[in-house]
């Protein structure tokens, strides 16, 4: 599989409700050791939202520092950003990712690092 197959895919729950599209994929460095890099990167979850503009700038994350006005504007734009932990994913089909439970239970994307 490729990262590009996840990015932009629509995330839906089993009742067919949409949480929006995949804006980014969160990785955590705790996989098996690989070469000189150390622990390999494992997919931890998906950052999902309904609005696309600005997601690639990183403003979706709550820990992002930046000018106050930009932060407030982007905070308003991205209040619907959600995090899908990998263990909630039930199936991955082209452009459509099905999750367990309800989209209403999805938490906000917490800070990375």
């Amino acid at each position, binding site marked *: 599989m*490729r990262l590009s197959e996840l990015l932009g895919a629509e995330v839906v729950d089993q009742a067919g409700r949409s949480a929006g599209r995949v804006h980014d994929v969160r*990785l955590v460095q705790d996989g098996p050791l690989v070469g000189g890099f150390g622990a390999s990167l494992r*997919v931890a979850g998906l950052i999902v939202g309904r609005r696309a503009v600005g997601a690639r700038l990183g403003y979706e994350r709550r820990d992002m520092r930046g000018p106050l006005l930009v932060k407030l504007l982007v905070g308003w734009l991205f209040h619907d950003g959600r995090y899908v932990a990998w263990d909630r994913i039930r199936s991955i089909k082209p452009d459509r990712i099905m999750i367990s439970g309800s989209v209403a239970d999805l938490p906000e994307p917490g800070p990375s690092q």
Partner: protein
Amino acid sequence: MAGRTLEAGLQLLDRQLVDKEGRLAGKVDDLELTFPDGGGPPLVTAILAGPGALSRRVGGRFGGWLEAVANRLREGDQRRPARVPFAVVKEIGSAIALNVAKEELETYRLESWTREHVIGRLPGAGDAPE
């Protein structure tokens, strides 16, 4: 064990690859994700670089054309972009530092083909510094 976390699109995609001698060696266009044999979440096993990977992200007719050109430039007939295994990655920062020379990478084939067949044929190319 809690490892560091990073966001793939924000902190890896489009970053420059830099080889062990500090030379530019391509750009991250996509990542190869592999499901481990024992089950569980996928692992990042390689960086995909070059127009073959980019064409998937571009999509449409232009993306298809880009992929066809990239495939013609590659030895063999495999429809895949140049693959940089994650084992040669040293560090992820504002660029991706590799612990090999760029000549050892698949991305180098595209670069050397372009230099020989396209750049080398331009008038005055022989006078250009390396």
